[in-house]
């Protein structure tokens, strides 16, 4: 059996929780230039199941955090993305997309308008780790003169995800219970100044907590003393997001995919379907009107063998109609699941397609996503 050897840790960056991960017995791997935990001794399936039944604690400090300041940073930022940013209420957040002039996706990100007094003239951004340097350079350059980007590299980011996350966090921070899905607020937790959002990347209810890096280890240790909480690595983070039908940048979306092809039209503000005013609007509005040639879909391979990224999808005559962009094993459904792009005539759920796996042809069925129903908290 061939075992990939770990890359040298020498050139990798580390998050403030690096020592804690190692103490907890994590297997560390290179990811987006950081040494990160792919799993702890419990293993990916156990960590995944724990997040779906209790509360998982994730270190996502490698992601890029920044504050954009200006007279009207939301209006400025709206020139770079198709979402409604000026319409964000104080304390509200939104998933959006940095686009290039061809309508390709430079990155996907979360934008929050903080609601606290004194934060007027600010919006808060969280972008992908692998893209953050390029994203922040792009934003700074494009918005020069109207807004200033200030990186928050000194801050850590933790995610607490799962059906017990709210009960756990309410014990430490009762105010967290006032948040609903995609809302955020500053709060002091255990003496630490935190910015807490009710969001995540698992399909579960839960929170992401931005806090000073030097307070992160103590804060994580405090959360891990709660009986419902266990540490969860990047391996389960990937299988959780795949079950939830969420895109992984660089795999399911990139500069060669448009939001229409990626089935992310919902991230384009209704008003902007007419008005445009974002990079690549000519391409994207044309695709909204007339359809795109391909679409991102869910895929259910027959049998038990996982179908991985890069597998070629064919019609019944063996003609290539697309590619798998993410695939693996669903611990909840106990079967392989995948997502990928297919030519639009094949994109309807229930359509039968084929994939070649180690020289054999497997049947796959186009499936609606998410594969596992989300449990976001939208209030009582």
């Amino acid at each position, binding site marked *: *059996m061939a*075992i*990939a050897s770990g890359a040298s840790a020498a050139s990798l960056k580390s998050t403030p929780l690096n020592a804690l991960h190692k103490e907890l017995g994590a297997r560390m791997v290179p990811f987006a230039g950081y040494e990160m935990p792919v799993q702890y001794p419990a293993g*990916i*399936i156990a960590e995944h199941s724990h997040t779906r039944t209790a509360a998982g604690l994730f270190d996502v400090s490698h992601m890029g955090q920044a504050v954009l300041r200006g007279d009207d940073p939301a209006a400025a930022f709206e020139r770079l993305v198709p979402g409604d940013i000026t319409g964000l209420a104080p304390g509200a957040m939104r998933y959006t997309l940095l686009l290039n002039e061809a309508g390709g996706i430079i990155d996907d990100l979360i934008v929050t308008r903080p609601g606290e007094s004194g934060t007027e003239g600010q919006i808060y951004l969280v972008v992908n780790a692998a893209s953050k340097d390029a994203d922040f350079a792009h934003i700074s350059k494009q918005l020069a003169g109207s807004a200033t980007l200030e990186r928050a590299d000194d801050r850590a980011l933790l995610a607490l995800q799962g059906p017990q996350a709210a009960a756990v966090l309410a014990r430490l921070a009762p105010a967290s219970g006032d948040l609903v899905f995609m809302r955020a607020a500053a709060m002091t937790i255990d003496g630490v100044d935190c910015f807490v959002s009710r969001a995540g990347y698992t399909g579960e209810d839960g929170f992401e907590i931005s806090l000073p890096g030097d307070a992160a280890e103590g804060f994580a240790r405090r959360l891990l003393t709660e009986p419902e909480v266990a540490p969860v690595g990047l391996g389960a983070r990937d299988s959780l997001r795949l079950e939830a039908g969420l895109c992984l940048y660089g795999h399911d979306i990139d500069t060669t995919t448009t939001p229409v092809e990626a089935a992310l039209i919902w991230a384009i503000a209704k008003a902007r379907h007419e008005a445009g005013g974002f990079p690549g609007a000519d391409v994207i509005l044309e695709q909204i009107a007339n359809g795109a040639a391909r679409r991102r879909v869910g895929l259910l391979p027959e049998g*038990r063998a996982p179908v*991985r990224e890069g597998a070629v999808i064919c019609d019944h005559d063996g003609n290539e109609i697309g590619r798998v962009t993410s695939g693996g094993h669903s611990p909840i459904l106990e079967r392989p699941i995948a997502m990928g792009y297919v030519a639009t005539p094949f994109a309807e759920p229930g359509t039968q397609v084929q994939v070649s796996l180690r020289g054999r042809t497997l049947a796959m069925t186009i499936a609606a996503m998410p594969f596992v129903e989300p449990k976001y908290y939208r209030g009582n």
Partner: protein
Amino acid sequence: MSERKYTEDHEWVDLDGDIGTVGITDYAQEQLGDVVFVELPDVGKTLSKGDEAAVIESVKAAAEIYAPVDGEITEVNAALNGDPSLVNADAGGKGWFVKLRIADASALDGLMDEAGYTAFVDGLS
């Protein structure tokens, strides 16, 4: 049964008469993580040393199991089809993959014994 032998690709083989049972080591299953699928060869297939004997899929990735010596498949561990996690739970026992009829048992002489394999693994980290 003769002493268990090990390859540098983290397979083990036990020889009983001319039949060798092949599995992967506990170190290998730990590196792989949770095993979710195993693709086993057809009985009767003839393999040369280094040929792919089976494919093992963990949550993270696929890995190939190589034939440690020349031989013909006489049996596969069908229990892995129903419960691939046996590889994690008991890599050195119930998680075996295939049995091979080995024409030339002396081919195993070139493999490591347990002490040699342990030293080999220690040298990897």
